[in-house]
């Protein structure tokens, strides 16, 4: 009697949603699967006054509060100095990098930085550097780069991740490598299947009358399409240089690509041809966020699926923290954060998924084959 409640059941997407009609085609036909698995939750707005007399645990004493994190101080040298913030030229945080070579080699999340020349690394000591791409591995979404002209860094040495158990503490870096964070191994180590890439548009299944093309009849909130400026009513005519006259063709062209990839889209708006570049996201992300509901309360990584093997943990991180190192409280660095998937889930690539290869690429880059002198 004493509470005013606003209840709502979260379903994504709502079964009554027009998108569920077979007549129109979202560029995400797995909608039905999600419809079946709508998820129950209750959101409540309290009218109670903020200052309840009941004891509330002060923020600093909580699991990720400063006092609890202070107990990790002996482990900080493993993670914090070995992290770097990847930011835009204007200083906006993009993601985090793990330093893997004293001479500037770093690993970070590939799909967050499709064009390394447009970002820079800000190191723990405050120095900044531009990045040179060494090797990009789309399969595991990791890019090896070198911070140009930087030496004297502290590098991570990755340890085997085998033997991690459910409930084992892990620590990592938050705030783009600047603060420690604590959590646990929260679910089974496993493969995360890919659901492909998506633009986040709903398309008319009838051929456009205006021109040969596919009319957009809906744009998902915070989707790649929205970010690129596409609007309802626009008619797609060319995607990645290929003519599109059927929604199926758009599917084919988009779905075979990886989240994070940038494609060029030609479209008609008010009979005028326009062009934009769209950075694709995981279909999973687009679907989860179709209604603009932030299921992670802080955002989901652009690419959050299609990994051969991941560790799952509950460290409270943001998409900009991906690329940072993950260590056990025994001081073993066991992986690198690769995707923020939802409010309770972060995926990390275990050492075994990348470390041997990475070391080979660093070696090869440090010692390129000598040019044969011309006699």
């Amino acid at each position: 009697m004493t509470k005013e409640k606003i209840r709502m059941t979260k379903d994504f997407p709502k079964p009554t949603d027009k998108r569920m009609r077979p007549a129109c085609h979202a560029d995400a036909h797995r909608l039905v699967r999600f419809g079946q698995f709508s998820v129950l939750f209750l959101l409540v707005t309290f009218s109670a006054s903020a200052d309840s007399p009941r004891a509330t645990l002060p923020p600093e004493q909580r699991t990720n509060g400063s006092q609890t994190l202070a107990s990790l101080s002996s482990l900080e040298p493993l993670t914090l100095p070995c992290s770097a913030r990847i930011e835009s030229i204007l200083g906006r945080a993009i993601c985090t990098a793990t330093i893997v070579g004293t001479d500037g080699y770093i690993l970070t999340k590939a799909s967050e930085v499709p064009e390394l020349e447009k970002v820079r690394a800000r190191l723990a000591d405050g120095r900044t550097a531009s990045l040179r791409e060494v090797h990009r591995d789309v399969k595991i979404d990791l890019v090896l780069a070198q911070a140009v002209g930087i030496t004297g860094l502290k590098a991570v040495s990755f340890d085997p991740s085998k033997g991690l158990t459910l409930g084992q503490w892990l620590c990592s870096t938050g705030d783009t490598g600047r603060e420690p964070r604590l959590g646990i191994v929260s679910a089974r180590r496993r493969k995360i299947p890919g659901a492909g890439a998506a633009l986040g548009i709903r398309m008319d299944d009838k051929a456009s009358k205006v021109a040969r093309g596919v009319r957009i009849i809906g744009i998902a909130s915070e989707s790649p399409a929205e970010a690129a400026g596409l609007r309802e009513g626009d008619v797609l005519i060319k995607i990645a240089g290929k003519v599109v006259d059927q929604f199926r063709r758009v599917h084919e062209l988009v779905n075979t690509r990886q989240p994070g990839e940038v494609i060029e889209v030609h479209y008609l708006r008010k009979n005028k041809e326009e062009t934009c570049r769209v950075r694709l996201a995981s279909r999973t992300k687009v679907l989860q966020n179709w209604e603009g509901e932030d299921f992670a309360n802080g955002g989901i990584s652009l690419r959050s699926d299609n990994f051969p093997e991941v560790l799952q943990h509950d460290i409270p991180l943001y998409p900009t923290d991906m690329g940072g190192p993950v260590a056990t409280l025994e001081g073993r660095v066991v992986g690198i954060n690769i995707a923020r998937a939802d409010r309770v889930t972060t995926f990390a690539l275990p050492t075994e998924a990348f470390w041997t290869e990475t070391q080979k690429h660093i070696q090869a880059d440090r010692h390129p084959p000598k040019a044969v002198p011309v006699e």
Partner: protein
Amino acid sequence: MPLLCPPFLSRAATILVAMQAIAAAAPSSSGEAGSKTDLAALLRVQADVQKLLPRVRPALVAIHAGGGTASGVIISPDGLLLTAAHVPGAPGKEMRVIFEDGSVTTAKSLGLDKTTDAALAQLKKRTKPWPYVSLSREIIKAQPGEWCFALGHPGGFDKARGPVLRVGKIIKQTANSLHTDCVLMGGDSGGPLFNFSGEVIGIHSQIWEGRDQNVHVSMAPFLRSWDEMQKSRVIKVWGIGAGGYLGVATVMNDALELEVVDVLESSPAKKAGVQAGDVILSVNGEAMTDQQQFSATVRARAAGDVLKIGLRNGSKDRELSVKLAQKPLEE
């Protein structure tokens, strides 16, 4: 049945009184549980959780009900199941229940408490006992700063992933709920929160946007309304069987005062002359500052007790004597 517990109905008032006492003493006592953790202490937490997991995990289930997915926990060998009231939504609902290994059975919802989000369900009978966990009867022990852990199926059942564990601390205890920093999301609803004895202390219910804002139904409404819920009743009025009943609805008004917005017909409050628009100042001389404190204060008294309630209407203060009654079953 080990959990039929009439004694608890009579003990409920005691529990609430004790809770208030603790709340008042909390600033001095909370330092103990929440004081500096060191690495060794964290590793002990890890060891405890990992020791309890194999025992408690089999009692966790995923629930499919009404087109949504949620979680639940079995608390008796004959298959009584705790979940959140918004999962079945009503008594008598058939639900699909899935175990970690993917095996499936059904359950039927019994009663539920819509005011606190507590619900009871019964698994299909079978000869073999169901895996189960105990629930904590020491509600007041779940204090801010205590470590706890949550299990559930966030986002729905996923066999490859299995159940998802979260370890965290209790942030707050209210009359009917616990707040923790075990981060929850959709699909966790109805899943269990455990203490470090492996007993259920909460059922996942609500979230706010902040990652430290995760709300679980405490065991209080379950223990208080156990008989009613087993009889498949729907509780729409806060806390049947939990002490004295006054019959007013309150809000915190813009001036952050506790204001009466409704006085129920033929309730003790109505008989005593409480009116909508009255601001509640005190009960038996104790100043009232919020709704939970007020509810707890009233509920801590038995039916038949007389309370002196200080009220203000406009600029006029007055005091009324109200004889508390038994709460009607439904209204």
